[in-house]
């Protein structure tokens, strides 16, 4: 019956289809579209949390964003973190994936071990790294000391608090690694055989075969990691801003942390909503740029 009128929609079937997807439509209207419009409205008003009432505020919140040096500061910290973390994460993950892809025997064992940090809850990671990164007694500086290097005050020195968060991000790099590993497994073996017959060495093979063939995965990981880096919260909050009596170095104030503080500590919902929208626009632009650049070099296979 469906075959007979393949081009026209069967009414009963269409209705059933809408019913099946209706939970998502409802969720989209409330928690995505509704929420975004709501947050846009809040960002243009003075919001009173006690009464849930909005008073028109025009551009006041956005003006306040510009006047608050901590907004620009936290954005700068976040950008610094992203610029440092994303390339390092991609390179380490790709390097590990290549190792795992080459080793053959024992790959499963190593993959399991490498994946364990990814299973560790952020709080546990934070409570351990808080001690490992301690400038005086921490294991990381002890290790550095044993090879004659005096390590930095990771958690105190303003110049080193951001790299310390990067270090924690690198510890959990295995998710990215698994995506690369899956992509590497899809590269046809014969390409390498042809290349080595042509006398291409391993480095050339990497740049002429491997990298182009997995460019889709590189592209995907860069975009996802960038979005994640701009929202980094748990580790920074747990290490530096959890204890409100503590004086945290300003360079550890990431955008998402400041947004959280403005919303849920100061209850400046209008200001925080404006911050959220600014972040959204920045990420949209960044992703658009990445997609543009990506389209230039990403190789897509014929079939998906």
């Amino acid at each position, binding site marked *: 019956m469906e075959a007979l009128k393949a081009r026209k929609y069967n009414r009963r079937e269409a209705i059933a289809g809408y019913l099946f997807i209706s939970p998502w439509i409802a969720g989209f209207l409330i928690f995505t579209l509704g929420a975004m419009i709501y947050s846009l409205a*809040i960002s243009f008003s003075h919001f009173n949390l006690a009464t849930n009432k909005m008073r028109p505020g025009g551009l006041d919140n956005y003006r306040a964003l510009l006047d608050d040096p901590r907004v620009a500061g936290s954005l700068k910290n976040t950008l610094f973190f992203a610029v440092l973390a994303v390339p390092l994460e991609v390179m380490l993950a790709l390097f590990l994936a290549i190792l795992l892809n080459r*080793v053959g025997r024992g790959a499963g064992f190593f993959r399991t071990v490498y994946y364990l940090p990814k299973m560790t809850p952020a709080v546990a990671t934070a409570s351990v790294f808080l*001690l490992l990164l301690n400038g005086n007694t921490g294991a990381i500086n002890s290790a550095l000391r044993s090879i004659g290097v005096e390590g930095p005050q990771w958690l105190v020195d303003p110049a080193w608090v951001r790299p310390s968060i990067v270090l924690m991000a690198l510890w959990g790099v295995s998710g990215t690694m698994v995506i690369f590993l899956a992509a590497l497994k899809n590269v046809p073996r014969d390409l390498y055989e042809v290349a080595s017959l042509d006398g291409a060495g391993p480095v050339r093979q990497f740049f002429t075969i491997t990298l182009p063939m997995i460019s889709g995965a590189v592209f995907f990981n860069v975009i996802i990691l960038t979005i994640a880096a701009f929202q980094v919260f748990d580790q920074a909050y747990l290490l530096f801003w959890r*204890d409100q009596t503590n004086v945290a170095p300003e360079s550890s104030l990431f955008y*998402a942390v400041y947004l959280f503080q403005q919303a849920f500590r100061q209850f400046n919902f209008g200001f925080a*909503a404006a911050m959220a929208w600014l972040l959204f626009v920045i990420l949209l632009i960044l992703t658009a740029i990445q997609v543009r650049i990506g389209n230039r070099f990403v190789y897509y296979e014929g079939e998906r």
Partner: protein
Amino acid sequence: MATTAPPAAVSQAGPSTPPPEPRRPRRRWPVGQIVLTLLLIGFALLFLYPLVWLVAASLKPSGQVFDNALIPHTWRFDNYVEVWDQLPLLHWIFNSVAIAFLAAALVSVSSSVVAFGFAYFRFPGRSVLFGLVLATMMLPASVTMIPTYLIWKQTGLLGTWVPLFGANLFGSAFYIFLQRQFFLGLPRELFEAARIDGSSYWQMFWRIAMPLSIPSFIIVFLFEFQAAWNNFQGALIYLNAGSVEGFTAPLGVAYAMTKYSPTAGGQADYQYVMVASLLVTLPMLLLFSFGQRYFIEGVATQGRKG
């Protein structure tokens, strides 16, 4: 990279130790294999170190937690006894298990329903709507964080668990994508036969599609269980104002970090934080040991959709 010495690389092959026998016909230089394995072992030690350190620290007396010894000088198993009196850990773990279970159960069923809608039925606007599903995956959570809080505030459900899993009733983009992929792989004749036998659409979904999709259903369930278990920011927003007993495990550990913080008064009892951290981590390691292939498969699929 050059250091991994694939086929065409250096041939200073001193036959040092018996090389692992090559499985493929491709030639492998033993030196390359040895360097490769050593590198992998080195990274394995780096990745394992913090976890081993955590286990060791959780077994040390108060004064030695910071000494970095991987084998405690003084073993103190009593930490594991006392911690239950020090912190309401049992409450936290119970709360976390319940919330993670509800979150995972809700989202895996609702996402399956929606995914079946997209996979099986033909209706106007289907591809546009599915494109919208995929687009929401890119939406940063911080953008909707504040209005979502206000929505829950207006429903009067603040202070309950509902905000931590309520939105899962409506499916979640990545899981819908995952389940749809699986449903698309099922032969359509299966459903047509059921139609002829007079099954309703719901029966086709519930009796045929669901049982067959168990493998990808498990991926969704495990992923969401882990995400909900680890959810720190959500708990901080929605539960922090309540009683300490009402915390989830991650929020509880954060609370313990402040309570026993070394800066909060000299050499505090940080070993309890270590025990609590380990107890929050163990269920996840257990989950991974049972469902490893599902986790790996799920993550790999994430990359493939790009």
